[in-house]
């Protein structure tokens, strides 16, 4: 086991950076989730740790040692591929055993280790099958087994759940978390699914266009997003974002389409001399109320079991989503409604860079 670190790691493809001066440390035993939209460079970052891509600039460290010049086979990290990359001509037992055969372990011990790992993942019955005779979830577990069997210094997982159906994904998510906690192996987990990131990660690192946006515990990123990108990316639906203006610097209300929202002390103090502002409110901090300060028209009402998402149109083309309990009275499409934002729930960002100026937390 070992910590993993990026020091200014940069990888360019055809001149364009896929990962841009990434500085990030994964502590020993930590499960860090690398989160970002498709094409933002998550896989590239992971592959640099594995040694499958060579950084153009910067360093990769494993266990405090720079490994830029170490071959993948000598890095002692295990990777779970999105495609699982099982060897199609070998049965499950041989697949799991494969990494052990290179380590001078005698056959007896190898067999025993393989059986233990297989049992811990519920694969005992499948040992004789070929990968093509397995379901997606079973293949996924074989890939996991192959990764953990040799007790590597770190796990690298590239969207290992993306080929599973929703129910199985939830189950496997929990399994991976439990497994990681049991083994205590440093894990770098890549996903574009913010729910996975929120539920699994000790910490989350959000990337966009190859650039690291924010690193922190899930609740920190959710409650205090460093910029608009993180604010919108986390949460489902993401944070409502409204262009805003102030009557005067330090005002306690920000004008937005359809009315105004309260900034609270933190927000108001942070606005300074900013020329253009954007405010953000999470759907759960909004409510329909006759005394609300925002005027809107209901566009869509979505019932999701316990929750209801009400999509509203403010003046102009600003839209926002209000989350309600399913028990609350539900508006009809086309209704005129008023919306209230809870005090101290409004985040303030600059209009130019989208960086956080202030807000709750």
């Amino acid at each position, binding site marked *: 086991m070992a910590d993993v670190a990026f020091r200014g790691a940069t990888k360019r493809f055809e001149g364009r950076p896929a990962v841009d001066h990434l500085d990030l440390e994964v502590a020993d035993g930590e499960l860090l989730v690398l989160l970002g939209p498709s094409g933002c460079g998550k896989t590239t970052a992971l592959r640099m740790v*594995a040694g*499958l891509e060579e950084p153009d600039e910067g360093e990769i460290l494993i266990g405090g040692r720079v490994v830029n010049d170490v071959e*993948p*086979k000598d890095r002692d990290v295990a990777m779970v591929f999105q495609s699982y*990359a099982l*060897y*199609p001509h070998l049965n499950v037992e041989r697949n799991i055993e*494969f*990494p052990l055969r290179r380590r001078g372990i005698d056959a007896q011990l190898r067999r025993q280790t393989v059986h233990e790992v297989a049992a811990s993942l519920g694969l005992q019955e499948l040992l004789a099958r070929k990968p093509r005779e397995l379901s997606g979830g079973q293949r996924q577990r074989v890939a996991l087994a192959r990764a953990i069997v040799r007790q590597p210094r770190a796990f690298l997982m590239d969207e290992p759940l993306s080929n599973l159906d929703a129910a199985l994904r939830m189950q496997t998510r929990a399994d991976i978390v439990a497994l990681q906690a049991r083994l205590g192996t440093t894990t770098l987990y890549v996903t574009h699914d913010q729910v996975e990131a929120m539920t699994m990660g000790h910490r989350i690192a959000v990337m966009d266009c190859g650039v690291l946006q924010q690193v922190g515990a899930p609740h920190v990123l959710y409650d205090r997003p460093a910029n608009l990108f993180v604010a919108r990316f986390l949460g489902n639906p993401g944070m409502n974002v409204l262009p805003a203006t102030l009557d005067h610097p330090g005002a306690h209300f920000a004008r937005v389409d359809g009315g105004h929202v309260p900034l609270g002390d933190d927000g108001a103090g942070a606005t300074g001399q900013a020329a253009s502002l954007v405010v953000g409110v999470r759907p759960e901090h909004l409510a329909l109320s006759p005394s609300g300060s925002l005027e809107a028209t209901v566009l869509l009402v979505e019932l999701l079991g316990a929750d209801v998402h009400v999509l509203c149109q403010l003046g102009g083309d600003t839209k926002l989503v209000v989350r309600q309990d399913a028990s609350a009275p539900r508006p009809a499409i086309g209704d005129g409604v008023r919306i209230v934002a809870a005090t101290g729930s409004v985040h303030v960002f600059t209009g130019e860079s989208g960086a956080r100026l202030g807000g709750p937390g």
Partner: protein
Amino acid sequence: MQPDSRNASGERRSRRGSRRRWRLTARYALLTIGAVVVLAPLYLTFVSSLLPPSALAERPPPFFPLDPQWHDYAVAWSQGDLGVYLRNSAIQTGIIVCGQLVTSVLAGYAFAFLRFPLRRALFVVFLATLMIPFEVTLVTNTQTISELGWYNTFAGLTVPFLATGVGTFLLRQAFLQIPRDLREAASLDGYGHLRFLLRIAVPLARPALAALGVFSFLAAWNQYLWPLVVTGSGNGVRTVQIGLKLLQGTEVSRTDVALAGTVIAVLPLLVLLVVCQKQLVRSLTAGAVK
């Protein structure tokens, strides 16, 4: 209404059934014609080898040997030294097949998985060798072999055929089918190129290997011109095809005996085809059915 529609659908079904039967009949008819065309020469050779010399001249030749002359085979075998020739052919073919498999696997792997300067250019050169007929290089090759002192040796018989553009191309294509992920997973599992090649790439390319093996076996076994040029009498490395030619020239000089020898020389190929049939078909259709 109900019975009507059932009738209609029943009729449709039977019409579809008869069309399918028709198509099947046509397909089998075509296959039968193909089989006859391919097998007739073989059959005629076999029958003729069993006919007495007098019957050979009959027109049309008999389609069935009423009085099979099995001793022709014994004559061919002993007078023609076919045992020695067959052994030589087996050695020559074995060396060529093994050589081609090894060099094609290594070169194909390099073109598929390694990155090196001039990779594309080199591959084009490899492909270009496919366009050069063997006859063009015959004279130079003969000269080279004799300068190396390899005239009348197995080295002379086989070395020029140890590497092939076709085989390299075939295996490169097979290796390219292997997902990159597998190579990367193996490299993280601690496997370098050679071990990955032996444990993963070669087993996965087995159909292509089998096809290459069979084709190179056929080509090597049936070689005539090259063995004729680089072998002479004495020392005995001549192959069975040359042996057959000589059989016609000896005092035996009987067509039926020569044909018996031909049948003996063809037997190994038939055995190979029967044994490897499944692999061959699979390799030939591998690209088509995915």
